[in-house]
């Protein structure tokens, strides 16, 4: 008997965790790295915390031939290698009992029929009531075919949720086509476009920081904030993904999704509540308010050979699978404006790239200087206050303030007040995929990107890419292990500002 908390007197006071309805999770692309390194460890973490449905099954689907047992064995190793929790046989056995594999050529009707047959049988065996979550961990080219096959075989019974990995299309036109295809057979609330940055605790903490504290929001505007700097820096290269990266480049890989979502969350107005549409409506307004940067406000770069963390590394053009004369960018810096009442004339500087000096994702809110420091000594050295949100690594928040140095004079020095997630909450931060997979099962799309957000993001990227057709920069233009090309520094120096020192 299903009873609600209100009806059941024994449930009152128990901390009932959100637990999804029974369902089968189908992973397309089960032989890929994403499944091994992210999805399976996340599912195991959810199992450890008993957050998966009581009646649940996982069906891996991919082109490679594999038996159920081989699939389970491979997934077991994935959990042992990548999970954040110690391996527990009982938890694993429970999870593995509902795990199956179907060999599937995505363009092959028979494979889809086999999958449908397997799912129907599992419904009987596991009591999952026809509820399905389909996770598309596949290249974009395979998505349309799979969506059509799922739509054709959709039964009237049970819920369907489609979780779609980035990239969602490769430009505005293709994104619209894909949205249109999805909308022919599925409701918007059945489509979950993943941007895993939104699943990160620290990104959600930006919402808590802004809207759960009374002290920040009154100064969160052009009157008090000088500018915002967002950095999404990776020290790694393309890790053997030349095929994907040559098509995407930094602008499609990071800027189009993660970076614009970080801008949206930083700049959005307070939503009236924390429902999916309220939050996404506010983010959409920001995306619509960003105007296309002019050619002087955007810089692209490509890394050459250099040293990263003491190791000599190849330049991008020497990476395996990359053309020797490729013009694909591995770095983008930009100055954007959010043209609305709150942010008019406040620049948002952003930079992102591969093979930079270190791995770091931060949002820095730099406040205006104190109008008139009355001190004789040290006043000129006073730096402005900076609220720094560390998205990764060392997740937390710090505030740079001026403080009097001990001594007889009035010397002011900058100090940091730090809040480290790991210091205050020793729970261990969940991986973004844990939260997002769970939310998809629960049907909560708050932390997923809506179709109109995706299209706004692509519209901006298409406009920037169109600008780039007009010139041909000299690549490579920054050595691996540095903070990007000199033009990136010039972009911000022209305004009398500089990138944060690291």
């Amino acid at each position, binding site marked *: 008997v299903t009873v609600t908390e209100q009806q059941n*007197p*024994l449930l009152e006071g128990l901390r009932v965790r959100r637990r999804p309805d029974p369902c089968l999770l189908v992973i397309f692309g089960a032989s890929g790295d994403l499944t091994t390194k992210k999805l399976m460890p996340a599912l195991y973490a959810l199992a450890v915390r008993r957050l998966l449905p009581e009646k649940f099954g996982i069906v891996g689907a991919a082109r490679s031939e594999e038996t159920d047992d081989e699939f389970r064995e491979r997934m077991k190793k994935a959990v042992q290698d990548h999970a954040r929790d110690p391996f527990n046989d*009982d938890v694993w056995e429970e999870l593995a009992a509902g795990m199956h594999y179907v060999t599937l050529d995505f363009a092959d009707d028979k494979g889809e029929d086999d999958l449908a047959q397997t799912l129907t049988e599992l419904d009987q065996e596991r009591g999952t009531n026809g509820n399905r979550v389909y996770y598309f961990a596949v290249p974009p080219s395979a998505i349309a075919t799979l969506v059509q096959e799922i739509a054709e075989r959709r039964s009237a019974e049970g819920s369907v949720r489609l979780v779609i990995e980035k990239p969602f299309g490769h430009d505005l036109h293709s994104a619209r086509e894909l949205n249109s295809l999805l909308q022919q057979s599925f409701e918007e609330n059945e489509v979950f476009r993943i941007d895993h940055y939104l699943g990160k605790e620290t990104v959600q903490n930006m919402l808590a920081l802004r809207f759960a504290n009374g002290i920040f929001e009154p100064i969160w505007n052009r009157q008090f904030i000088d500018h915002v700097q967002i950095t999404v820096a990776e020290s790694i290269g393309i890790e053997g993904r030349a095929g994907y990266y040559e098509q995407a480049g930094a602008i499609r890989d990071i800027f189009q999704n993660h970076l614009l979502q970080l801008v949206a969350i930083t700049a959005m107005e307070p939503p009236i509540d924390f429902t999916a549409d309220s939050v996404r409506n506010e983010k959409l307004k920001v995306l619509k308010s960003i105007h296309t940067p002019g050619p002087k406000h955007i810089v692209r770069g490509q890394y050459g050979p250099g040293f990263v963390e003491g190791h000599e590394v190849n330049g991008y053009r020497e990476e395996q699978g990359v053309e020797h004369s490729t013009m694909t960018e591995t770095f983008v810096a930009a100055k954007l404006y959010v043209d609305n009442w709150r942010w008019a004339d406040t620049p948002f500087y952003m930079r992102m790239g591969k093979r930079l000096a270190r791995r770091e994702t931060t949002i820095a809110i730099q406040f205006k200087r104190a109008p008139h420091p009355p001190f004789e000594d040290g006043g000129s050295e006073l730096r402005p206050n900076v609220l720094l949100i560390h998205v990764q690594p060392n997740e937390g928040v710090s505030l740079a303030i001026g403080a009097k140095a001990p001594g007889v004079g009035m010397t002011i020095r900058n100090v940091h007040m730090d809040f480290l997630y790991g*210091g205050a909450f*020793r729970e261990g931060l969940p991986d973004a995929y844990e939260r997002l997979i769970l939310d998809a099962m629960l049907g909560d799309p708050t932390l997923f990107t809506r179709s109109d957000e995706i299209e706004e993001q692509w519209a901006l990227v298409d406009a920037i890419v169109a600008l780039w057709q007009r010139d041909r920069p000299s690549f490579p233009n920054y050595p691996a292990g540095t903070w990007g090309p000199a033009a990136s520094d010039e972009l911000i120096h022209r305004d009398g500002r500089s990138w944060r020192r690291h």
Partner: protein
Amino acid sequence: VEATLTVEPLSESNWTGEDATIAQIERELARLRIASSGEDAQPNLRTSVMTHIAWVPAQWQVAAEETLAGMGERHPSRTLLLVPRPEKDDGLDALVSIRCFPVGERAVCGEVIELELRGRVAEAPASIVLPLLISDLPVFCRWRGEPPFGSSELEQMVDVVDRLIVDSQEWDDLRYDELAQVFDRVAVSDIAWRRTESWRFALAREWPGIAHREIEVRGTRAEATLLHGWLSARLGRPLDDIALAEADSVGVQLDGEDMPRPRPLYATPSDLLSAELDQFDRDRMYEEAVRSAAR
């Protein structure tokens, strides 16, 4: 032994003082904190989410210290370990330590202040605790053993702390009627109650059929009594309508059949205490269970 360390401290430094004063303790804490980061290093963070007090009569001291060693890593806090020794001459002895744990490239330090309250000082714990609380953060007090209800020291601590944590399994007498009298003054948690949580989930799943079934609850005295009181109160059935028996561990029979044992929600005693330290509001269901059990 109640807890095991999950992460070894990076460093630990101590100061011991006989007949110490609060000013000395505060001064030594500051000195140790600065010294813990070493010369030329970035200062370690003092991160605190609470002041955690443990009232530890001498017979509980070893177990309590081991538990607290595990808690420092989980709940960065200022911990005050109060050991009452009323039989000794008046005075206050202190052992102050800073324990730093790695967090990424930095270290986060917690403070542990062990205080032996000698002679009449043991009758005035609030006067020691109040100046050592961290401002604006919640104050939890784990009272080891059976609280001396009505005593001056307990009354003082009830007025100082936000949450009183007991484990009624440590009590010789289940004095729930006296415990219930402090509910309106301080939020109370009971680790014995927390241990029954997986069973309460399991029993909730039996609703609505359980309302009319024959029930027998068994277990250690505290756990079984609390579960029994809770079922009676929540199902609106008289206490003697639900059978109660003592056993080594909790079990429930419905219509004469044993319910499957649910998987425990907390693996170690440290997990149990940790769960209590994460709860800030009053536990109305616990209060109801206690009042029902005390009838």
